[in-house]
C-alpha cells in the first residue's frame, strides 16, 4: 500500500484508457504519453495496461508500506528514496517504510510512476483511468490528495526486470523544445481557405500556458474560412459548424484565432471547424510540451499515419527486448 504524504501538482491514476464510450460523450482518458506509461510498466515487470500515476510538473511524496519496485519515466524529475537521489527510466526498489519523493520535472510536462503490480484502485467501465470532468475512475475520480492510500495489485508479467534495469536513452522520447506534429487533413478542412491551410503548415505555433488534459492550446497565425451562407443550425461565426464529433487529436480553430489540439480527455464533440487530426503517435510528444515550447504541423497521409503507429509499437518492442537482454548479464 502507498500513502500519499504530499500529492504533487496534479497526480492522477491512469492506464491505457477506457475505450468504447464515445457515443455517450465519454472520452477514452488514459495516460497522455502512452509510450512513457508503457515503458514505466515494462521497467517494473507489469502488463502495459497496469495503472500508473501520471504526474504533471511536480510529483508526489509517497510512503511505501511494503518493499516496492518502482520506475519513473516521461519527463526527467528529481526522484529520491528517503532523501537519496535515484535515476529516472530505471528500475528502483523502495524498502519497506521508506518514502519515494518525486520533485519538479526538469524536462517535459508529465512523468509516469509505475509500481510493480500496478495501482489497484477500483476499475470503472473496465479501466482505472481518471476522468476528472465526470469524477470517475482512478482514486475517487480526482487528483491525489495528502492522506490518500493506494492499493497495489498483481498485474505483473512473467518477465521481471531486475533492479537497476534501464531503457536505452535512444529509446526515450523527445521532451519539449520544438517538435513536429504529423497531421492527417480532413474533417472540416474544406471550411478553411487554401491559403490559410498553407499558412497553417508553414507556421510555428507556441504552446499556451492555458492547457490541461482536455486539449493543448496552440498560438499561431489567424486562419480564414471560406465565405458561405451560414448553414441552418451552425451559428453565424465562420468557424462554427453544426456540432459534430471531435476525434482525439483533432485540431479546431475557434474564431480562426487559436488552434486547440484535443488530448485523451477530449470533449467528444462541439461546434468549431476542425482542420485535421494529429496522428496518435505524436499525441505522446504533444503531451510533453509546455509553454513556451513550439510545434509545427506536417501533413501526412493515412498510410503514413498507420506507419507512425507501427513505428511506435516497434519502439515498445525494442524496449522490452532491451530489458530482456539486460537481464541476461
Amino acid at each position, binding site marked *: 500500500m502507498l500513502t500519499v504524504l504530499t500529492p504533487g501538482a496534479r497526480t492522477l491514476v491512469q492506464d491505457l484508457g477506457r475505450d468504447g464510450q464515445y457515443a455517450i460523450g465519454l472520452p477514452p482518458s488514459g495516460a497522455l504519453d502512452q509510450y512513457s506509461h508503457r515503458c514505466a510498466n515494462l521497467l517494473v515487470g507489469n502488463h502495459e495496461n497496469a495503472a500508473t500515476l501520471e504526474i504533471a510538473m511536480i510529483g508526489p511524496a509517497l510512503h511505501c508500506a511494503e518493499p516496492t519496485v518502482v520506475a519513473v519515466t516521461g519527463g526527467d524529475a528529481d526522484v529520491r528514496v528517503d532523501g537519496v537521489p535515484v535515476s529516472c527510466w530505471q528500475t528502483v526498489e523502495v524498502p519497506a517504510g521508506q518514502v519515494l519523493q518525486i520533485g519538479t520535472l526538469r524536462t517535459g510536462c508529465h512523468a509516469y510512476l509505475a509500481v510493480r503490480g500496478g495501482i489497484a484502485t477500483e476499475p470503472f467501465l473496465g479501466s482505472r483511468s481518471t476522468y476528472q470532468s465526470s469524477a470517475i475512475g482512478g482514486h475517487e475520480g480526482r487528483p491525489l490528495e495528502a492522506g490518500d492510500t493506494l492499493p497495489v495489485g498483481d498485474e505483473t508479467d512473467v518477465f521481471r526486470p531486475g533492479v537497476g534495469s534501464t531503457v536505452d536513452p535512444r529509446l526515450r522520447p523527445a521532451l519539449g523544445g520544438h517538435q513536429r506534429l504529423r497531421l492527417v487533413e*480532413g*474533417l472540416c478542412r474544406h471550411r478553411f481557405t487554401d491559403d490559410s491551410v498553407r499558412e497553417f503548415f508553414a507556421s510555428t505555433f507556441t504552446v499556451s500556458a492555458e492547457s490541461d488534459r482536455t486539449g493543448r492550446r496552440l498560438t499561431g497565425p489567424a486562419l480564414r474560412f471560406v465565405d458561405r451562407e451560414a448553414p441552418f*443550425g451552425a451559428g453565424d461565426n465562420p468557424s462554427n459548424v*453544426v*456540432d459534430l*464529433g471531435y476525434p482525439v487529436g*483533432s485540431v479546431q480553430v475557434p474564431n480562426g484565432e487559436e488552434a486547440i489540439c484535443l488530448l485523451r480527455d477530449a470533449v467528444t*464533440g462541439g461546434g468549431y471547424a476542425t482542420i485535421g*487530426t494529429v496522428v496518435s503517435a505524436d499525441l505522446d510528444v504533444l503531451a510533453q510540451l509546455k509553454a513556451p515550447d513550439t510545434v509545427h504541423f506536417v501533413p501526412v497521409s493515412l498510410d503514413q499515419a498507420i506507419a507512425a503507429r507501427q513505428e511506435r509499437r516497434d519502439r515498445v518492442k525494442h524496449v522490452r527486448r532491451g530489458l530482456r537482454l539486460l537481464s541476461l548479464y
Partner: protein
Amino acid sequence: MSYQLFTDGARASFGGDEFVFVEVGEGMDLAQALRIQAITGDLARRELPGVIDVAPANASYLVRVDPDVLHPRALVRTLSRLHERFGEAGSVELDTEIVEIPVWYADPATERTCLKFRDRHQSADETDIAYTARVNGLSSVDDLVAAHSSAPFIVTFPCFKPGNTECVQLVPRERQIQVPKYLRPRTETPARAVAHGGAFTVVYPTAGVGGYQLLGRSPVPVADLTQQTPGFETSKVLATISTLLRFRPVAGEEYQQLRTDSREGRYRYRRAPVRFVLAEYLTDPAGYPRTLEAALC
C-alpha cells in the same frame, strides 16, 4: 485529396489513424439526422471486429477503429454501401421517451458566470440570455423563455461529456431559436446549466468548459455515472439519442425545493414512453409535438 465522396454527397475523411468522419450535410435537418441514426444504428448492430465506437451526430458521424484489426479504408467502403442501402429517412418511427426538465431561466449562477467571460463574447454589455432573445428578434427575455419552453426538443447528438445531449426543438424552422456560440469557449460553466448554441440546447452535466449561450439552470441532474440517483437505475445518462426533452420554467423558490428533493433522493423525473413518427411531424410540425407532450400529463 482529403475526402472521399459517397453517392449521396456525404464526405468521408480520416481522423488520424483511429477515426473515420462522415459529414452527411453541413446544415441541420431532422430527417437527415434520423437517417444518420439509421445508418449508425445498423453499423453498431453489426459489431464488426475493430470498430471501437460508433457516434452519431446532428449532420455527421464518427467511427473509431483499431486500425490493426480493421483498416479505416475498408470501413469507408462498408459505410459507402450502407449509405446506399439507407437512401431515404422515409418512414422512420422511433420508440422513445419524453422527459421533463425544470429550468430556472436567467438564474443568478449562470448570469454570474456569463458576465465573467464577456471578453470572449460577441456582446460585452448584456447577458447571454438577453443576447439570445435579441438576436432572435424577441422583445424580452420572457418571450425567449416562452418560446424555449413552448415545444419539446429531440436529442440528435449525445456528445461533449456523459449525459450532455444536443437537442433540437420540434417547431417549424422559422420558429427555431438560433444563436452563435462564444467566440472563444469559457473555461467555466456551472453544473446543470441549460444553454443554447446554433439551433441546439444542452444541459451541461457537470461544471467545466463550454461555448454555448447560458440560458438558465436545471435543479436536477442529467447524468449519474454511479447510478445511485433515482431515475438512473437502468442508464448512466438521463437522455440518449432520440429522447424527447421538454423544458418547464420554474422560479427560484421551486428551483431550490427541487434541488433539495433531488439531492435527498426524493425527486422523481416526469417521463413517459412515446412513439415519434417522422411523417406525422413533417405533416404537422406545430400540432404533432403537442400530442407527444400530452403523454406527460
